[in-house]
């Protein structure tokens, strides 16, 4: 329980001090947490006359080393994070770029210039995987964002209880591992016992060998992605919708706009930043589609469902071509970057 000298609302370094016990500091924290804007609890504050605070003179600490030494505690606090960050993030990223210009084998590594990149772009499988991943993204991202927007718009006007019920119902499937979801969908697509062939049977359609045919395998994966509810998207949209100023809607109501017009003219424009965020996020996510592939099709039949990440995985950990796999992953990185920047610009400039 030390003594402190403080005046309300000013820096502790000047003027009259108050004795402040740790107890009242606790009380302040308590108030702060409760959201009562910080007023010092003057539980036992007595004015102290002289007893000045030791002035920490602001010396000219010009030298960098001196400043660093003064802040040694901060560096100490950062150390554990920086250690792991350096070992498992900075080094691997730099190394990935270096590796992509190398041929890696048992003997060691040799520099091969752009050979890996040329090999990657000449390889049929890689080109097919680029195309498949691109198609998958083009189809699933708009579906993700639109579904999220529609469901959130329907849920938002409901009462608190209904809101949290539907929020839970739509988010629940996304907290379970994709591995589980993929396992059950593989069964749902089963030719003989699957529920899908059963359902289309009601409409008199012949059973389809969903995952076993090259022309229906990728669409089947897209359908799966569309039917898995966009839980995160719904929650993010709902939060954004609840932030929209209600007076806008009231003004529109007075002007005689109906519900649909209000939605088109107010809700959607106001949600633009959220939409942009979700589009970029889900694009990055769908370019990395992998778990469904390895659990459901293994990239087959043929190369019909080969995706970029699955090719990288096979190149690295089945063929042990680390250089080539690194080049492929660098290509993936640039594709994602280009897409993200392009989306950011095009959606931002619409204002």
């Amino acid at each position, binding site marked *: 329980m030390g003594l402190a000298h403080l005046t309300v609302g000013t820096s502790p370094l000047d003027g009259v001090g108050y004795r402040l016990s740790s107890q009242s500091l606790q009380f302040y924290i308590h108030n702060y947490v409760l959201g009562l804007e910080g007023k010092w609890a003057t539980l036992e504050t007595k004015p102290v006359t002289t007893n000045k605070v030791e002035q920490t003179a602001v010396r000219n600490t010009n030298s960098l080393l001196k400043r660093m030494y003064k*802040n040694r505690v901060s560096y100490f606090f950062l150390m554990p*994070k920086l250690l792991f960050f350096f070992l498992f993030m900075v080094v691997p990223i730099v190394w990935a770029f270096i590796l992509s210009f190398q041929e890696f084998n048992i003997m060691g590594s040799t520099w091969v210039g752009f050979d890996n990149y040329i090999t990657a772009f000449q390889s049929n499988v890689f080109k097919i995987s680029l195309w498949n991943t691109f198609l998958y993204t083009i189809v699933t991202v708009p579906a993700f964002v639109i579904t999220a927007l529609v469901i959130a718009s329907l849920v938002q006007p409901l009462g608190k209880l209904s809101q949290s019920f539907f929020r839970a119902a739509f988010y629940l499937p996304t907290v379970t591992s994709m591995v589980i979801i993929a*396992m059950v969908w593989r069964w749902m697509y089963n030719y003989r016992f699957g529920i899908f062939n059963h359902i289309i049977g009601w409409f008199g359609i012949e059973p389809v060998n969903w995952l076993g045919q090259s022309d229906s395998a990728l669409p089947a994966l897209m359908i799966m992605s569309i039917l898995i509810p966009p839980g995160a998207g719904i929650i993010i949209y709902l939060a954004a919708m609840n932030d929209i100023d209600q007076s806008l809607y009231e003004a529109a109501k007075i002007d005689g706009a109906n519900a649909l017009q209000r939605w088109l003219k107010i809700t959607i424009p106001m949600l633009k930043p959220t939409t942009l965020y979700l589009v970029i996020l889900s694009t990055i996510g769908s370019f990395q589609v992998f*778990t469904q592939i390895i659990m459901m099709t293994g990239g087959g039949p043929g190369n019909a469902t080969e995706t970029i990440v699955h090719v990288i995985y096979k190149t690295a950990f089945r063929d042990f071509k680390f250089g080539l*796999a690194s080049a492929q992953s660098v290509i993936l990185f640039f594709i994602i970057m280009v897409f993200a920047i392009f989306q950011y610009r095009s959606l931002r400039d619409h204002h």
Partner: protein
Amino acid sequence: MKPKQVNQKVGKLLIYVTLIFMAIVSLLPLYWVFATSLQLPSYQNETMEQPVNYVESTPPKLYPVGVKEYFHQWQKREAAKDAGDASQAAYHDEKMKEVVTKTFEGFVILFERTKIMKWLLNSLYISIVTTVAIVLIDTMSGYVLAKKNFPGKMLIFWSIIATMMIPEQVTLVPTFMMVQKLQLFDTHWALIFPSLALAFGVFLMRQFLLAIPDELIEAAKIDGASEWKIFWTVIVPLAKPAMAVLSIFTFVLMWNSFLWPIIVLNDENLLTLPAGLKTLQDANLASFKLLMTGATVAAIPMIVFFLLFQRYFVKGLSMGGVKQ
């Protein structure tokens, strides 16, 4: 009622019907995992000519048949008892027992013949250790990045943030080589250490701690508290909401992670649940019922976890910056 009011009532009803339909569609696969894990495999009663496997029946059975069959046999048993036919009653009693055993046999086989208990414990251990470590080191670094000034601060912060843009596949191969160099291949550390490099937590903690008034820290300093003590007595209590969000997202991320574990783990005894489920499916020995039983075991902890901490999930997502 005025026509306008009727219109509104009908509109509300339509919204509810649409939403409930969508919710059913979204929950159906999960429901089917559970239903199949309790489905009757080959079973024959007095009315059947040959055993039926309800797990692989066409059309698929949408509910565990055992429930209905149990009730049916119970009715028959009671009827036999009333008629005084002891042998018949004994037969139906046997059938009832058989239905119960066969309904839950998936779980028995799973825990006896596979390593699922080990996988469950591995998943728990890895998720908990990683979560505790991440929350601690990210709160520490987030605190100084938010509240201190020192040379190189912004450089450190921005380099951490910049890595959020880089897909994990880019670092896949080099991290794998790093893990081999450090002789961590086929250990749990290979899963834990690389996760501690993730940037998201630092960003979250810093954003949250920026809002804490400086006076608090100053006051504690004047009280003579050391930096370490300030961190534990002032910062940590205030940062609890953000720490809760970070814990939950880290835990789910680790529990469900799949790509990395299947790369760095070989030993069957070290696998996590998702990786273990993959080996079950690859082995092709496991029936669909057994696979779905495994999936049930893997899914239930997460579902309970979500229902308990729903509030924080919503909070975390609303803060933004969370991958699905």
